[in-house]
């Protein structure tokens, strides 16, 4: 594949364009690397220190000043605060309420319900509530505004 590199003067101008016939796993991996969230975070379960691949995270929730990371396999605790994770995880991990960050890649679909509530159904079938005040930011992260 032809790779081109161009120097720009402004941080705002930085970007990467990938032209491919299909979005195969290699391309998806490259996108993740470029988005800067191909890493792992330190977590704990049953007193054991582990590393959690950020790609497996469904959502992160803060409960009583403790932060919990939810994946398909289960729940882990992390010492990191929600605001720290927001910076660490990358643009597709968006705040969806005061106490929660959701991995947008794990959202199957959003539903608008009567009564002004927005719900997100995750790929594991779980439903979470999206706070209306964060919808604009989610749209921005999905490049819709």
């Amino acid at each position, binding site marked *: 594949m032809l790779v081109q590199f161009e120097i720009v003067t402004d941080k705002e101008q930085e970007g990467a364009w990938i032209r491919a016939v299909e979005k195969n796993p290699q391309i998806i991996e490259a996108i993740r690397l470029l988005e800067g969230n191909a890493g792992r975070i330190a977590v704990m379960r049953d007193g054991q220190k582990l590393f959690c691949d950020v790609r497996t995270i469904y959502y992160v929730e803060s409960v009583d000043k403790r932060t919990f990371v939810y994946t398909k396999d289960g729940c882990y605790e992390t010492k990191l605060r929600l605001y720290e994770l927001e910076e660490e995880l990358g643009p597709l991990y968006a705040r969806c*309420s005061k106490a929660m960050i959701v991995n947008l890649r794990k*959202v*199957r679909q959003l539903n608008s*319900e009567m*009564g*002004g509530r927005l719900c997100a159904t995750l790929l594991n079938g779980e*439903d979470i509530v999206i706070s209306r005040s964060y919808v604009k930011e989610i749209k921005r992260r999905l490049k819709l505004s």
Partner: protein
Amino acid sequence: MTLLKRLVRHTMMIASGILLVVGLETAYFHFFRGYDAVFSWYQPGAFLLTGFFCSMPGLLLTDGDGKRRSFFRLRIVLHWLLLFGVVIGMGFVFEWYSDRFSCGVIALAYLLVYPLVWIVTYWMDKKDVREINDALKTIQDDE
């Protein structure tokens, strides 16, 4: 959407709803009772002020908060009651009631306007949801 934008949007929607109901009521009196309604100078402002006060509880009570869905119904009931208090209270302040019947008419109007506002909000949200769902499909993980 910023807090101020939501406040303005809800104020305008509620004031429009009130105006619609008042319009229907005055049309009824004009065509079926044979007399025209006369408003005091401050009534259009009163509709807007009522819309503003009605939008306030909405900001406090209608936001979802994480996964906790159990309080949602309670929040809606609280919201409904608070709004009802605002509407009836504003009616007394701005002298919308001449007797018990007219107070009943306002209460009935409230019952009509409340779901109308939610229906409009739901319809407006649908557009956002459709756009977001289309964008989500392009980044979704395969599982």
